[in-house]
């Protein structure tokens, strides 16, 4: 049962990452990120229950609360303020991006089969999903132009790292996790302010315009 | 065979009396084709037949024929299509071709049939190549029937050039094989152990090119959409249904079973080319508004589907899965028959339309279902069959192709197998696109308002043209409902081919199709058909309450007519836009306005797709060849002394070489 739930939510996270690549509306992307974080929370809770590791409950609560609610809410506010709703034409069109992400996922999955199987026998699925999401997140950062999408991509990478950590070691020490969580929150706040600044300056949040800053 | 030649001769003799000439020529063709069917059936039921046509005493060469079961299958296809096509021609050519040309067409028609039959039946290289060339030439003559038109001449020329490049490749391949085996008979040449190593790969490429040209696979297809529409419709039907199959036959005979156990890469290459041809063929077909060009591109698409099955079979055979290989090959052979049936039907129906309206352009037609109800019905049957919809025959063979691809995935090892479901997805997309394409063709040409006088005044074709269409339509339905019977026949072909084994527990019923272990999948089209009938009955009962009232279509207050109805171009526009990376559509909109640009008096709209292969592959190729020829002009200076000097140098060189060998 717990295995099924693990696999289900991990794969669900991969689906959200894919959907993020597949569309351009910023609100939907943020919502997808929220859903992804909730699924990560489910993964953490499942492991906490199955392995009897109470600290993971805290992690799960943090994940769901911070990344599932607070950050999406904040990002939506940012998007609402600056009034830009969709990603402009990215560097690559959607089918091409999907094709690349497909290849990335296959790569991620292939690599994951090399990891030692945990006690549960599903670790490599979790790690495979994590690695694939990591690659997809990096790919998103490379190809998207809007600052908000870049933040979302970064957050996806962060979720992926978290998932991999859960897959390999059943979670990091609590202190580390707390630290990371607040780091992320802080980063998002800073980035949110930065986005405002960029929009103020350029009347656009197209980060490819940042190259105009050089002397 | 003799009947064909007699009929050809009779056609020429009776050249002065077109009517008699038609009856003699095509009557002869019908008789000959019926005999071919009989021969094929007897071979499939009994065993191979072979014999000798003649011998050349001085060189000791013999020319023979040998009807193997594989050849018999292709002969059966030939005969089944040729009978209705010949019958149709009697009526069609009376209107389509002026009397003076009838003799020529009739003769070429018979020669073509004889040549194709001989291609299938040839037992040695010389006979094969001779028949192959006669086939090419007689087709060229038929394509050029309306040689007053410039584009027709161009089409025939292009066909000849492409065919000769192909024949060149074949000749080279056969020469290598013949010199390596020291014999000219197919039995020795195609024994499979003649050459090895990279020679085998090189030969595969040569033969694939040579036969691929005839089969019309992308990127060797360029002649096909030019030549098919240029020929008279009954000839197009024959070309699409039979001539293309000569190329396919070659691929079977030589590439798949003549060079030993195929290499995995060959199979994958054939699959890749097949998938490419299928998807691009249908995309190009969608862009056409000339009904015969549309059908020609659809022929490319179907050649692609045939190659998908063949490629899957070859890959499986290379990996030692003999039962799986049999399924792929069976799917391919089945589609050969089905494509011949429904494409023959579609071309004949299109011919009736062209004859009745004088145009091939579907945007000038419309509403023909009222004037030509039978033709419309037959075209609809053909359209359903080509779209692979149950319970017609196209569904049966596409179903089997899917089985080959999926079972291939299930039982092959490694990364290779990922190409199988990918090909399956492409095949699914192809058949959905074909459906879109034929909804467009049928809807635009036969439904709603007529778009011009030609379409308004259209009237039904004579019975002599309708009966053959009905015959082919009945065959489409019959084969679709009883695929098991056809598969049994294909089974006898299978056991004669090396490297195949019939799946052990495949049910041998008349109604059912099931490849391999029956648990995997099976289908009973007849049951599907009966269920549909039951559903129709239910619908009829539910909706039978009241009689209908007839009113004009509501046009939002405006008047609807030919100018407001949806055109075929508009129909396929969304797909054109979606696949714009491939098709590269261009468009020009020109608005002629008097007062304000928002109220144009007349809008001209022109749209075209870029011929990618013609421009980017054949363009540089042609200019390269021409450039090389220009440079070679230096050698060919036109001076007699220079030529004599060449001869002298060559002679001396030869003598020295021969002397050195001693």
């Amino acid at each position, binding site marked *: 049962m717990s295995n099924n739930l693990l696999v289900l939510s991990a794969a669900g996270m991969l689906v959200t990452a894919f959907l993020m690549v597949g569309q351009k509306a910023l609100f939907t992307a943020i919502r997808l990120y929220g859903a992804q974080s909730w699924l990560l929370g489910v993964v953490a809770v499942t492991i906490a229950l199955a392995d009897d590791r109470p600290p993971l409950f805290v992690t799960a609560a943090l994940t769901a609360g911070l990344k599932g609610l607070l950050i999406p809410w904040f990002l939506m506010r940012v998007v609402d303020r600056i009034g830009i709703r969709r990603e402009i034409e990215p560097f690559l069109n959607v089918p091409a991006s999907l094709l690349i992400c497909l290849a990335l*996922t296959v790569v991620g999955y292939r690599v994951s089969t090399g990891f030692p199987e945990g006690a549960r026998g599903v670790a490599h699925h979790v790690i495979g999903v994590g690695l694939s999401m990591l690659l997809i997140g990096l790919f998103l950062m490379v190809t998207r132009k809007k600052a908000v999408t870049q933040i979302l991509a970064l957050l996806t990478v962060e979720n992926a790292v978290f998932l991999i950590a859960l897959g390999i070691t059943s979670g990091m020490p609590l202190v580390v996790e707390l630290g990371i969580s607040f780091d992320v929150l802080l980063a998002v706040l800073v980035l949110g302010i930065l986005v405002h600044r960029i929009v103020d300056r350029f009347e656009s949040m197209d980060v490819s315009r940042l190259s105009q800053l050089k002397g | 065979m003799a009947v064909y030649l007699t009929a050809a001769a009779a056609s020429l003799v009776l050249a002065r009396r077109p009517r008699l000439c038609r009856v003699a020529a095509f009557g002869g063709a019908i008789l000959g084709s019926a005999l071919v069917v009989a021969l094929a059936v007897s071979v499939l039921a009994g065993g191979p037949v072979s014999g000798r046509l003649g011998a050349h005493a001085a060189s000791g060469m013999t020319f023979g024929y040998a009807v193997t079961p594989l050849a018999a299958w292709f002969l059966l296809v030939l005969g089944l299509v040729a009978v209705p096509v010949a019958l149709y021609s009697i009526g069609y050519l009376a209107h389509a071709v002026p009397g003076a040309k009838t003799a020529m067409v009739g003769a070429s028609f018979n020669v073509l049939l004889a040549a194709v039959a001989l291609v299938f039946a040839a037992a040695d290289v010389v006979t094969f190549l001779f028949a192959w060339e006669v086939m090419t030439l007689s087709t060229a003559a038929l394509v050029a029937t309306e040689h007053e038109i410039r584009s027709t001449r161009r089409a025939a020329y292009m066909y000849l050039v492409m065919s000769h490049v192909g024949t060149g490749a074949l000749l080279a391949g056969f020469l290598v094989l013949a010199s390596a085996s020291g014999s000219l008979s197919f039995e020795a040449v195609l024994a499979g152990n003649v050459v090895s190593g990279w020679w085998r790969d090189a030969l595969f490429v040569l033969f694939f090119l040579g036969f691929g040209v005839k089969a019309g696979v992308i990127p060797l297809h360029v002649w096909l959409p030019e030549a098919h529409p240029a020929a008279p419709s009954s000839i197009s039907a024959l070309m699409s249904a039979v001539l293309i199959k000569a190329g396919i036959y070659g691929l079977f005979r030589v590439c798949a079973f003549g060079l030993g156990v195929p290499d995995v890469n060959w199979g994958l290459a054939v699959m890749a080319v097949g998938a490419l041809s299928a998807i691009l063929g249908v995309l190009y077909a969608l862009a056409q508004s000339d009904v015969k060009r549309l059908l020609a591109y659809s022929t490319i698409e179907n050649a692609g589907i045939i190659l998908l099955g063949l490629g899957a079979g070859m890959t499986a055979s290379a990996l030692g899965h003999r039962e799986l290989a049999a399924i792929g090959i069976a799917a391919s052979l089945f589609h050969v028959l089905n494509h011949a049936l429904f494409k023959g039907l579609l071309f004949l129906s299109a011919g009736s339309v062209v004859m009745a309206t004088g145009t091939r352009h579907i945007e000038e037609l419309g509403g023909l279902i009222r004037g030509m109800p039978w033709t419309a019905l037959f075209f609809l049957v053909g359209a359903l069959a080509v779209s692979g919809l149950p319970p017609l025959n196209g569904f049966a063979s596409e179903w089997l192709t899917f089985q080959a691809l999926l079972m291939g995935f299930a039982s092959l090892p490694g990364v290779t197998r990922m190409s199988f479901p990918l090909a399956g997805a492409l095949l699914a997309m192809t058949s959905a696109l074909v459906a879109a394409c034929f909804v467009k063709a049928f809807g635009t040409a036969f439904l709603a308002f007529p778009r011009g006088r030609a379409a308004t005044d259209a009237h039904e074709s004579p019975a002599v043209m309708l009966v053959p269409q009905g015959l082919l339509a009945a065959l489409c339905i019959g084969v679709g409902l009883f695929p098991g019977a056809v598969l049994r026949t294909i089974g006898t072909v299978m056991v004669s081919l090396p490297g195949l084994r019939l799946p052990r527990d495949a049910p041998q019923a008349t109604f059912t199709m099931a490849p391999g272990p029956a648990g995997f999948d099976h289908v009973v089209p007849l049951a599907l058909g009966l269920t549909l009938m039951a559903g129709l009955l239910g619908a009829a009962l539910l909706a039978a309450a009241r009689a209908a009232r007839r009113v004009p279509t509501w046009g939002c207050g405006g008047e609807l007519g030919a100018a407001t109805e949806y055109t075929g171009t508009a129909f396929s526009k969304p797909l054109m836009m979606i696949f714009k990376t491939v098709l590269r559509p261009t468009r020009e909109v020109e608005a002629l306005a008097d007062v304000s640009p928002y109220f144009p008096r007349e809008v001209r709209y022109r749209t075209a797709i870029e011929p990618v292969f013609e421009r980017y592959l054949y363009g540089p190729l042609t200019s390269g060849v021409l450039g090389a020829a220009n440079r070679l002009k230096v050698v060919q200076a036109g001076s007699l002394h220079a030529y004599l000097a060449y001869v002298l140098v060559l002679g001396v060189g030869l003598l020295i070489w021969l002397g050195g060998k001693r």
Partner: protein
Amino acid sequence: MTEGALAAIGLAVLQAAGMLALAPLLRGLIKKMKAALQTRQGPPLLQVYYDLAKWLRKEPVRSDTASWLYVAGPRMYFATSVAATTLVPVWMAAAPLEAAGGVLALVGILALGRFFLATAALDTGSPFGGMGASREMTIAALAEPALMLGLFTAALSAGSLNLGALVRGLLDRGATFHPSDILALAGLFIVVIAETGRVPVDNPATHLELTMIHEAMVLEYSGPDLALVEWASAVKELLYLTLLADLFAPIGLATSASPELILLAVPIWASKIFLLAVAVTLVESTNAKLRLFRVPDLMAVSLGLGFLALAIRFL
């Protein structure tokens, strides 16, 4: 005719009748839930039944440019939807007519209905019909490969392309999930959204001609003709949701024809369908309709998910 065949036919008739009877309820349910999310009252749950009953009693009005195909279209569409129900396991772990064909036959039958309806739409000469038919065929061409890939993934992991055998294979395997199941489910869900004409691909409630796809195609139909089309669409929708439930949560299907098991299976099936209906409603309510030329991107996502499901399952 053997006794087994007769029993199969009997079951097929029962199942088809059951699906026909329940399909309008699903439509009504989704409408009601959508209304609730928009804090509206919404039409009564049974409104779809009232509509069908009314249309069936009305006089059909047909265009005088239309031919026999126009009349044949809805009938064929209805017949294909009904025939399709007999190929899918709904309450039992066996399809009544599974001996007649599997997944490919199902897809083929549905495509046949679409072909006829699209052709019939061109018959009146109204530009709306043409536009709808064109878009419907376009989207179908994009959805079909994704549908096939999703189905293949399930079929290959169960070792059969026959829906009955497939479901039994899944039941034997027991309740262990593989990530590819989720990917395939997500891919197929997108296809189902597209094939049933729901937001964000199409909007079943719109009557603004330029945004319509399916509705534009059947715009000219009235009376019993319209009833057949709408009813068949409802059956198709229920069928697709049932298919999703079968492939990814086959638990609860009656493994034998005993009445108790079937009585147990029906509520389980109903709750699965209800969950899926909630998902459809949520997607409809939270998304805006996509531009027609954004739909290919969505279908590409679906195709990608399907292919990925195959890849990570079997690589």
